[in-house]
């Protein structure tokens, strides 16, 4: 009697168990489907939120630069406190915001070959690769080179490729206009061509000769006046050439590296300017006169006031803003690199974003998986 009863109870248990299993399978299917949709939406929302945070931090950096009331820019002014950064982020994330002066760096696109040779004298391979890149003929695979540079470093990826260094050296830049008082005839012609001017080979040769023989004779910040002295067969459009060429001081002595400064000042070769880095941090130059005094008193370098004013400025013009967002495990999620040019159309508080690169990092992929 007892045995029979137990068997009957067992069959009900199997039936209920089977029913529960079926119900569980149906429920788990729904739960899985809902979970998948929820995860996809959550990842998308997180992605949008991270992008917006990076945008906000970039805007913060721009306003930080523009709202500085001091008459000069120095490394200390470009620091944003972590507390301010954290107000733009949720507790799950951390970020770094770096502001750098791009306009005071060595720009191979806009400097003569003689400067390249000097700057890369410790790395002749870099010089050769740069030369091959810049002077290669268009649509020709051979080793023939042109007399005027016609290929430029357009992105930071180009710079990495040419110099075979990742990341690209922080002492170089590819942004910002050329300085009239630092170029030679070849760079001038390349700038005229870059502005859209068409020139015959005779005109190119004459312009180079004219420019090189009359170099650094007139000091003015008016580009139209300077170009009119060159007797060009045809003048470029002023609004376009002014985007590419400036005669106003743009290199900030508070950010310049000794290796670049050596090229810019007379008798600079062989000097190490070892005290420059400390001065930039501790006692930045508050005016061009202060920098002139430094060159004269500390290093015995005399440079005309006109020239120093045409090359240097204690107000930076081209900035780089690097925003990197990472999670609590310090895995990088998103980096945003923005280049901002200040003071277009003669307005100090105006700016233009001239380059922008957003890059999702491996940390995002891992957390997505």
């Amino acid at each position, binding site marked *: 009697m*007892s045995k029979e009863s137990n068997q009957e109870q067992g069959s009900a248990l199997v039936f209920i168990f089977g029913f529960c299993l079926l119900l569980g399978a149906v429920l788990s299917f729904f739960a899985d489907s809902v979970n998948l949709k929820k995860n996809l939406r959550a990842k998308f929302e997180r992605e949008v939120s991270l992008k917006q945070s990076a945008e906000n931090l970039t805007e913060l950096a721009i306003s930080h630069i523009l709202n500085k009331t001091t008459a000069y820019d120095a490394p200390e002014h470009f620091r944003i406190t972590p507390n301010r950064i954290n107000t733009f982020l949720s507790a799950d994330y951390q970020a770094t915001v770096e502001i750098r002066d791009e306009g005071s760096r060595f720009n191979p696109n806009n400097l003569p070959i003689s400067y390249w040779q000097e700057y890369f004298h410790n790395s002749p391979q870099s010089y050769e690769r740069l030369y091959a890149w810049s002077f290669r003929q268009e649509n020709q695979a051979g080793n023939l080179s042109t007399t005027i540079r016609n290929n430029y470093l357009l992105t930071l990826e*180009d710079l990495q490729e040419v110099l075979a260094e990742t990341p690209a050296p922080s002492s170089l830049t590819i942004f910002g206009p050329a300085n009239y008082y630092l170029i030679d005839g070849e760079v001038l012609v390349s700038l005229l061509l870059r502005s859209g001017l068409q020139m015959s080979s005779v005109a190119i040769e004459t312009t180079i000769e004219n420019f090189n023989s009359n170099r650094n004779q007139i000091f003015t910040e008016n580009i139209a006046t300077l170009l009119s002295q060159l007797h060009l067969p045809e003048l470029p459009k002023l609004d376009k050439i002014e985007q590419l060429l400036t005669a106003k001081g743009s290199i900030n002595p508070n950010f310049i590296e000794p290796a670049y400064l050596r090229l810019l000042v007379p008798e600079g070769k062989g000097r190490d300017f070892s005290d420059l880095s400390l001065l930039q941090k501790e006692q930045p130059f508050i005016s061009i006169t202060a920098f002139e005094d430094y060159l004269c008193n500390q290093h015995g370098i005399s440079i005309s006031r006109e020239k120093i004013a045409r090359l240097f400025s204690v107000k930076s013009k081209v900035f780089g803003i690097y925003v990197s967002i990472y999670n609590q495990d310090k895995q990088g999620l998103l980096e945003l690199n923005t280049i901002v040019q200040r003071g277009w159309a003669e307005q100090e508080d105006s*700016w233009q974003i001239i380059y922008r690169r957003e890059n999702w990092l491996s940390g995002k992929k891992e957390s997505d998986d």
Partner: protein
Amino acid sequence: MKDRFSAEKHGLISTKREEEGFTLLEVVIALTLTGFLLLMLSPTVFNLQRLLFRENEAAIVNRIQRLIYRKLGEILGNAYLYPFYDGKVESFSGEQWGFSLPVVTKQGLARAELFINGEKLIARWERYHSDEENDEQEMVVLTNQLVTSAFSYLDGKTGVWRNAWHEDYYPRLVQFNAAIEQQDSKTRALIPIVIPLKVGQKDGKNL
């Protein structure tokens, strides 16, 4: 009482139910209740398939929406402003059916295109000045279910939305409006996607 329970526990005394089973009345009541329950649940059961189908369709539309948003954001977020005027790199150009512009990629400068081809929305990238012979253009079909779709561009200088863009400066915003044809032949409008173009924009306090 104590003895009776211990006897039941050990199977010495059988219960009434074990001896007699269910009565007819009990069975009838149970069947009636089950019938009522099934009757009440039947619309849900019959609509379950339709519900799943709709859910799936909605999920597909959402996925397409997200994919288009991501690609548009990726392309416009890495837009490149060519700094020279020698015509070697074309600026942004756009029509109702698509646009193209230079962008920065991991491999360097490339030209990206996003265009509508019939029911397809296609994203395409091609590197500028590539030396590699095998460097083919990359192409992705984002969807093949578009029915009515168009791009439009906001002119930051005039504040007017335009159907085509051939200026030497960049539009402030790019908008994509579209509808998707679902499997049941119904069309469903996507939420308009509006992406800002940050590069090339001039800003300032007094502007």
